[in-house]
Each structure stands twice: as C-alpha cells, then as structure tokens.
C-alpha cells in the first residue's frame, strides 16, 4: 500500500494509530489518581512529542543514513521558527504560509551551511556545523536583533500589519494562529468516568504532518537515493571509484534534513507564536543527536521513539518533587521514608538530566542499536529462538529497517 512493502505499511499504520489515539494512550491514569502526573496526554506535551519526532526523523535521514553527524541542526529549527513568526506578523495568522516559508528558508539556509561544511567529513564536519549553529545563535542575539528581537525573542504585537488578516481582534487582543479559521489552541475535552481526554486541533495538525514526514522518510529510506546514502556511510572511496559523486548526495541529505528541522520549527511557532534564539543553541542541537541515537540511528521508527522518550522525561520526571515522593512512600516508617526520598532525590525534579544521562549511557553500551534494538530483543525472547533467527535473516535483507 502507498508504494510501501507490507512490513513498512504495517509500521506506518501502527504509528498512525498511536498518534491518532495518543490523547487516550498517553492518559491512562484517572485525573484524580496519584499517578495522574504521569499522564502525558495534554496538548502542549503531545505537540512537542510529534514536533520533535519530525525533527529527529529528518536528522536521521542525514545521520542515520550517511553517518555525517551534524551538531548544528537546531539552527535550522530556529530559522524555521523565526520565519513562521514573521509570516504571522506580516501576512496573517493562518499556519499554512508560515509552515511553507519555514521549510523553504530552512532549506536554503541548510544549502548554504551544508555546501561549506560538507567539504570536510568526520569530526571536522561536526565542528563546522557546530560553529555555524553557534554563530547563528550569537548573531540572533546581537547583530540580527532587528529580525530576531534579540534576547526578548520575536513575538506578535498589536501593531503588526498582517495584511491578509487583522492587527488586532475586535476585543483588542492579538489574533491566534489558525488553519483556515480552526484555532490551533481549540481543544475538545471528553470526560469518560474519572478520565478526561483532550483533543487539540494543533496537536492533530502536527500529528498529520508528522505522519506525512514519516511516510516520506520511509520512501527515502527505500529509494535508490537512500541506498546511495547508506553506501556513502559504508565506503566513500568505493563510491568515488564507482563513478558516483558523493557530494551532491550528502548535500541533498543535509538539505532534506534541514527542511525537516525547519518544518519542526515552523510548527513550534504555529502552536505558540514566538521564537527565541535559545532554540538554536548547541544544547538543542545535541538533544536531537541524543534522540536519534537513543531511539536507534538508521532505523525508521527509532528517532520518533527517542524523541518521545526524552520529551516525556523532560516534562514528567522533572515535575516530581520531594513532596510527591513523600506522598508515595508515606506508607513506610518515617526514618526509612526519609532515607528513600533522600536516595531518589538526585534523580528527579531538576535531576532528571542525571536519570536521562544514565539511561542514555546504558542504552549506548548495552543496546548500540537503541530502543529499537531493545524492542527487537524483547520480541526475540518472547517468540523464542526460531523467531530470533528469522529476525536476523530479515535484518540482513533490510539493514535500514
């Protein structure tokens, strides 16, 4: 179906179901229960899951296929956000032109940076991309203030022209982003017994776009172009002596992944119309590297898993504090309760980075193929040795699963 083989089609359908039913799946705990804070089914976080999913899917086309590790991809995300906010300021609050422009601008920017950075490979390439991204970050803070509004970040104001819309609504406030009138912030709440599920227009827009982006990445992985990119990773020397010019291949991969990042940035601004330079900082670039490796670089679904995993940690673990811990362990005798809370304390709240860091190390050391490899091993154990051998054979025919 859709020009995909059976296995890829079922993967796409699974991902489609997961994203469409995410408001249910991510809200397994009743609203009043003590575990409700582990619910991730609220619009803001769900949007972030899919937006960072797009970012990581795109990054994986470059890093997973060609092996070129860019440390500057946040720059394209930032550029995408700025472009989108400018569209909201100048043209109007419809998200479509904003998203389109963010993809185009990020693509052009990636063409420039890729053209220069791809003259080198390996660590030098990584350093060049890092340097460009930090340069963009610093310029956004300083010289480019007229475009980026410096430290304050680019925001909408009541004075913006918005030639195809209105500068201010009838009641004197700034208009909100919409898709042909459908407000991105509009949320439908469904109460089922003790549960409350939220269906947000913005989330569903992002989810549909992520599905399209995911579909496109499957097509790229399975195409002759995708095969050439894997060949670049495997042996550039052989490529050159087989009459293939590796440079346009890597550049195309770089620009495509830059456009994915721009799309993510544009969507971010469409959900919340502001853009700041910190989106371009190296930590943001590093995050997408972590997502991709954690999930499984070079696999189709890995980056999406990695993005979800990290965003879940960032938002849920960081909110657990000592009071919550005390309430969980209140059944213990006092001294023991304090001891347990004391031991767990460094790993929660602001310490979530520590937990994530440890998990990341464990994955890299024991599961070099990321969460996807973990999943495959579990599947192997569950279905016994025979299935495991089959899986191996399948892996050989389709190494870029």
């Amino acid at each position, binding site marked *: 179906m859709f020009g995909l*083989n059976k296995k890829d089609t079922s993967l796409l359908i699974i991902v489609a179901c997961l994203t469409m039913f995410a408001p249910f799946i991510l809200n397994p705990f009743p609203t009043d229960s003590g575990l409700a804070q582990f619910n991730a089914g609220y619009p803001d976080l769900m949007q972030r899951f899919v937006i960072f999913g797009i970012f990581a899917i795109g990054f994986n086309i470059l890093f997973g296929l060609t092996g070129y590790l860019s440390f500057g991809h946040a720059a394209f995300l930032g550029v995408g956000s700025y472009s989108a906010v400018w569209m909201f300021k100048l043209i109007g609050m419809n998200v479509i032109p904003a998203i389109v422009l963010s993809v185009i601008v990020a693509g052009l920017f990636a063409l420039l940076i890729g053209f220069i950075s791809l003259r080198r490979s390996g660590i030098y390439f990584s350093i060049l991309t890092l340097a460009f991204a930090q340069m963009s970050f610093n310029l956004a803070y300083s010289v480019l203030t007229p475009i980026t509004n410096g430290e304050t970040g680019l925001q909408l104001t009541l004075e913006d022209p918005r030639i195809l819309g209105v500068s201010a609504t009838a009641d004197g406030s700034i208009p909100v982003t919409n898709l042909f009138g459908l407000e991105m912030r509009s949320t439908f709440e469904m109460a089922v017994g003790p549960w409350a599920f939220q269906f947000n227009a913005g989330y569903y827009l992002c989810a549909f776009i992520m599905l399209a982006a995911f579909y496109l990445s499957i097509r790229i992985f*399975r*195409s002759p172009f995708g095969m*050439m990119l894997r060949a670049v990773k*495997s042996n550039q020397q*052989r490529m*050159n*002596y087989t009459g*293939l010019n590796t440079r346009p291949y890597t550049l195309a991969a770089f620009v495509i992944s830059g456009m994915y990042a721009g799309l993510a940035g544009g969507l971010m601004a469409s959900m919340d119309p502001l853009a700041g330079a910190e989106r371009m900082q190296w930590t943001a670039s590093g995050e997408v590297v972590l997502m991709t490796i954690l999930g499984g670089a070079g696999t189709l679904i890995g980056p999406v898993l990695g993005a979800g995993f990290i965003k879940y940690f960032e938002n849920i673990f960081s909110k657990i504090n000592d009071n919550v811990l005390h309430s969980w362990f209140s059944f213990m005798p006092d001294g023991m309760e304090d001891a347990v809370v004391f031991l767990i304390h460094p790993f929660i709240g602001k310490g979530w980075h520590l937990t994530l860091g440890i998990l990341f190390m464990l994955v890299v050391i024991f599961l070099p193929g990321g969460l996807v490899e973990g999943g495959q091993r579990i599947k192997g154990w569950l279905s016994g040795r025979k299935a495991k051998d089959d899986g191996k054979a399948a892996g050989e025919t389709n*190494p870029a699963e």
Partner: protein
Amino acid sequence: MGILEVKDVGKRFGGLQALSDVNLSVKENSVHAIIGPNGAGKSTLLNCLVGKLIPDTGSVMFDGQSVLGRAPYEINQMGISRVFQTPEIFGDLTVLENMMIPCFAKRDGAFELNALSSVLRQKDILQKAEHMLEEMNMADKRHMHAAAMSRGDKRRLEIGMCLSQEPRLLLLDEPTAGMARADTNNTIDLLKQISDERDITIAIIEHDMHVVFSLANRITVLAQGTPLVEDDPQNIRGNPKVREAYLGESA
C-alpha cells in the same frame, strides 16, 4: 595508439622521485601487466591514472582524452574501473545492493536524486545485478552482508562490481596479494574468462609471476620509478636486465 597512453609522467613525494619519465602504451583488448620490485612506483602510477594523484609532469590520455585534473568519479565515468589492493566494497550493504550500486552509476550517471521510487521497482537494475552475481558464482550469497564474506569472495564481488559498469579499461592492483593458492587460481581463471569474453582492456599490477605469465600478453617492468623494458612475456623471462632488477631477487 593504445587505449591508454602515458607520456613522460613524473611524480615526486618530497625528496623522493617516485616516478620519472614513465611512458606506457596499453593496447586495446590486451592484458598488460606492470611488474617491478617493492617501492618501484607501480601503485603510484595507478593512482595517477584514476585521479587519486595528479602527476607533476607528463600526460595521461584515455581513448584520446586527458584524464588529468578530473575527479576519480569523472574518470570512472569515462570507462576506467579500478580494483584495489585490499577489496573496497560496501561492507554494511548486502551483496546484491553492492552489485546494484555500480549498475545505478552506469545508468544514471554521477548523481541522480531518485528519492521516491522504491529500489525494488528498479527491475532493470535488479536484473542486471542478479545476472552479474550469477556470473560471479555468488548468487547464493545475495542477501549476505558483504563484510561477512571471505577475502576471496570480496575480491570476486569487487571485480563483479567493476564489470557491471561495463568499463573499457579495468585496472587491478595486486588482486591476488595475500590469497591462498586456490583463490589465486580462481582469480586467474576469472580474469582470463573476462578478457576472453568481453570487449575489455586489463592492466594488472602483480608480484606473483605465476599470475603474470598466465594472463599477460604484454609486460612493463618498472624499477625505481622508470620503465626498464616493455615487451612480450616470453622475452621478459629471458631478459637479463629484468632478471637483475627483479626476477633474480624474487626467484
């Protein structure tokens, strides 16, 4: 006029004159061996032919066109394929994929943004690659990772990959170095078959005299960066100069 004409080529590495006044003419459809002691400059000469190195002086003409100043992929697209001293293949890809890539290079040229169609829809490429694998006697290995194969098989695959580009000139740098006797004999048979059945010129660098005299119908002896003699095999055997410079040492 040969298909490959090397004129007065010189190459210096710092203080070392690796090649000087190299003149070489390789006739179309011949098997031309280049022999010489270690460090004679054989690999350096080969690198000058495929664009890996640019000679300081002289000219290299392939089929009437200069190759100098062109990138390796451009020279390959002109019709020169190269087999390396240690097999250069795509280790992470399957054997079949390895074979498909040169077929794409032949059909689509140096770059083609074919990002949306599935590899499995490229029937002509698949067919050609499968056919080539059969010819190389490795069809049963098509779904193996190339890196997992034996050295002899890797060499075979690499030769097959070069052939599927239908090159006019095939360059081989010590294709049997480090091979067991049986693998060496297989390679000799394979190369013989290739040169008999195809419209192809082969230039081969080799230390193994058994390989050289089994295959070559013309031999150039290189010593200290300069050709000593160029002659037919039977004359090379008896040439005292060659014995002194080369055969005497190794025999």
